[in-house]
């Protein structure tokens, strides 16, 4: 039943996408791959890719294990900050590594996520859609393009991918220097620029997705570092992704002067939590 629902969802999404592409084809010249008219054969080719449908739930126990056992090769200056964060954590004053509701960014989103994601295949592209905010999202181009020479720097960078058998190999550059490399919400640092991330993503059994992530971060690491994330597949409508607007927590429900529903600023909180400052 869940499988049938999932298949229908994919078909209807595909149909909508194809309609959109057909419409855009009127204005733009044809090009193979993402943003081009989706040929029937491109959609058929997707059926030969591995089945990554469903909802993917990050393996939190593995995240904790990586934090305990797989230490990144921080350079001396970075290690000092990490050591301080560790001390603060133990003493109950966790550093706010992810602040201001900015995205986790790449590759941290793949490493310490608590919320689920879904993965959509379309011609020339793999899209990862997260639960929290519209900006927890990755577009991985699989249409054979190269990275831009001088990409705009963004939280998720510029990702290109290709299939090696059933493994999606993703190469990412152009990540903003402010995007953290974090092993937990309280342990991590900005990558500080020039980061390069390579991932090998595949199913290791029917319902486990593995992402082997190798990070080269010359400003904060002494050598490349590899970590592995796992995601468990959930199927069924009870696991559907729900909307999650991070900034919503800063506001309370209210009404404006004309009687329309709105949000008004709430009290400042301790460390991004629910506890108002000054009211211990």
């Amino acid at each position, binding site marked *: 039943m869940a499988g049938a629902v999932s298949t229908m969802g994919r078909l209807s999404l595909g149909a909508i996408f194809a309609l959109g592409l057909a419409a855009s084809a009127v*204005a733009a010249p044809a090009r193979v791959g993402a943003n081009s008219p989706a040929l029937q054969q491109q959609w058929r080719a997707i059926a030969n890719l591995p089945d990554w449908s469903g909802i993917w*739930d990050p393996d*939190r126990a593995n995240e904790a294990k990586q934090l305990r056992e797989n230490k990144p090769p921080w350079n001396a200056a970075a290690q000092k900050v990490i050591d301080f964060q560790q001390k603060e*954590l*133990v003493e*109950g*004053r*966790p*550093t*706010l590594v*992810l*602040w*201001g*509701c*900015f995205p*986790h960014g790449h590759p941290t989103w793949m490493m310490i996520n*608590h*919320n*689920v994601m879904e993965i959509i295949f379309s011609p020339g592209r793999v899209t990862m859609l997260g*639960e*929290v905010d519209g900006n927890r999202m990755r577009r991985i181009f699989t249409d054979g393009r190269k990275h831009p020479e001088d990409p705009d720097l963004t939280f998720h960078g510029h990702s290109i991918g290709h299939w090696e058998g059933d493994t999606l190999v993703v190469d990412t550059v152009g990540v903003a220097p402010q995007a953290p490399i974090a092993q*937990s*919400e*309280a342990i991590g640092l900005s990558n500080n620029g020039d980061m390069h991330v390579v991932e090998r993503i595949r199913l290791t059994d029917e319902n486990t997705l593995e992402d082997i992530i190798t990070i080269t971060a010359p400003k904060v690491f002494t050598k490349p570092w590899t970590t592995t994330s796992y995601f468990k597949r*959930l199927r069924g409508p*009870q*696991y559907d*992704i*729900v909307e*999650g*607007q*991070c*900034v*919503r*927590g*800063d506001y309370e429900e209210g009404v404006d002067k004309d009687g329309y529903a709105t949000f008004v*600023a*709430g009290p*400042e*909180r*301790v*460390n*991004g*939590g*629910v*506890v*108002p400052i000054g*009211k*211990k």
Partner: protein
Amino acid sequence: MTVSLKTYRLAATGVALGLLAAAAAPASAHHSASMFDRTKPVIIKGTIKAFNWVNPHCSILVIDEKTGETWNIESTSPGVLTRNGWTKRSLKPGDHVEMSVGPLRTGGPAGVIIDVKNLDTGETLKRAV
């Protein structure tokens, strides 16, 4: 073409406004819970004052029947709670509950949820992570 440019401008304005809001009140975030001590749970029996089903962290306000204090108790996000059987109606103002809470290390009536038993329905809901 005009439409897409307009859309782009709107989106850009939205981002700019979002940044302003973040600068004015950099409060919400995905954060560690080490300011709470889950190893020394306290039990609070009382009445639900409010259940805030909002991102990034739900919160439960409960009036301690012993002291009359209102506890502010943090939880994870609606998405994570939903996949663990919670709904926005799981707790309602006036419900009688017994909660196990990891308290704020610095003291005061605040903490992080471990589990909550609804004494009216007998249902127990656990923290999801």
